[in-house]
């Protein structure tokens, strides 16, 4: 079972939720929920531009390898400047300009179409390293893996795809995917294939606005979704955004699965690098119930109804 955590807006608490879920999966002494997973949970930090889940789960990396994109290289001696490569490139990463063929590596997705379609076989490919994948266990018993995109690299998707290749479809394990913020390609690449999508939002204009975008992504990808309302606060100038989020969720048939109050104590704990369930043990059972409900929905296909 793959549970992805996304939000739209950044800083709403994706990693807080994701790391707490992961710790609940290995909580002792009582096994959390009726999960018949036989192997340890896998945590994937897909926010490769700014991974931070390691600060909370503290893995010891024992595997690391480089990831690259295959960039076309044009042999000008063979190229007849027919323009086929430029026509077939979906990303406009190659242009044929008179007697010159120009490659724009920062736009290339490494799909190989130009190489395949070149009638002169004038294109070869060279691997350009864009980042690394790292993997290792955490002291709590979670298998942790993350991608780290090299600074200045614009293309996160190839790294995320290869990170997700570490999910063993045969393994009977729970996978927690901590997605990057936003709703663009890296998010789609991260949450694709998930069995359930947890959308973390906050009662602010931006949190609400981006939640609506994130819900569209969930619908487009046909992933069942539920909402976590973080920094839940009633008596504040922004209190009305609680109502906006709640009304929107009701209209959309989206269950609000969890409300986390806006408390200084929580902010302070996170700032010390602690996971929510570590300094607020009361949340362990809350997250276990959340996991149980998600598991039931994924296993039975019956949507969670409570708001």
């Amino acid at each position: 079972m793959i549970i992805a955590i996304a939000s739209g807006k950044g800083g709403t608490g994706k990693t807080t939720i994701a790391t707490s879920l992961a710790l609940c999966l290995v909580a002792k002494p009582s096994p959390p929920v009726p999960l018949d997973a036989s192997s340890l949970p896998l945590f994937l930090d897909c926010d490769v531009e700014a991974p931070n889940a390691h600060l909370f789960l503290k893995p010891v990396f024992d595997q690391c390898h480089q990831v690259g994109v295959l960039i076309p290289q044009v042999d000008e001696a063979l190229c007849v400047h027919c323009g086929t490569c430029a026509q077939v490139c979906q990303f406009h990463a190659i242009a044929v300009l008179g007697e010159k063929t120009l490659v724009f590596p920062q736009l290339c997705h490494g799909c190989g179409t130009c190489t395949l379609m070149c009638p002169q076989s004038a294109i070869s490919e060279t691997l350009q390293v864009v980042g690394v994948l790292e993997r290792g266990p955490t002291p709590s018993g979670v298998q942790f893996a993350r991608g780290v995109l090299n600074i200045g690299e614009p293309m996160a998707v190839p790294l995320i795809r290869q990170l997700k290749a570490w999910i063993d479809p045969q393994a009977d394990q729970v996978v927690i995917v901590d997605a990057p913020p936003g709703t663009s390609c890296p998010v789609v690449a991260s949450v694709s294939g998930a069995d359930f999508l947890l959308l973390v939002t906050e009662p602010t204009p931006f949190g609400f606005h981006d939640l609506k975008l994130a819900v569209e992504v969930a619908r487009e990808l046909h992933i069942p979704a539920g909402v976590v309302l973080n920094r839940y606060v009633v008596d504040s100038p922004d209190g009305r955004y609680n109502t906006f989020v709640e009304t929107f969720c009701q209209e959309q048939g989206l269950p609000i699965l969890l409300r986390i109050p806006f408390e200084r104590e929580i902010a302070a704990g996170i700032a010390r690098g602690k996971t929510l369930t570590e300094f607020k043990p009361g949340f362990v059972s809350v997250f276990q119930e959340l996991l149980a409900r998600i598991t039931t929905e994924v296993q039975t296909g019956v949507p969670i109804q409570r708001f």
Partner: protein
Amino acid sequence: MKIVITTTSPDITAEIDPRFGRASHFLIVDPDTLEWQAIPNPGVTASGGAGIRAAQFICDQKVDAVISGDFGPNAYDALKEAGISMYIFGSSRTVQETLENFKSGQIEPLTAPADRGRRRR
């Protein structure tokens, strides 16, 4: 001589479009005969690489120069490689003004892209 002016609509009386890659239309015009043709920019809907797509299109039209308000680094490199001169509108707001200023030499050729800031490598 054929030049391209980026415009907001497909007409010789159009206002200029200050963007290159995301310009609405390309007006291909001969400044001497004023013979013209307007073509929608195929790059305008591109999710990425709009400037390169637009530059490729301009290059395929076999023109001598492009006048726009801004050329991104990729578009600049592509047009430069294609040997197409780039000019900046300056104070011109319409195609007519642009053509007059171009003919009287009041429009300066561009020698560097507008912004290298987003260039990654």
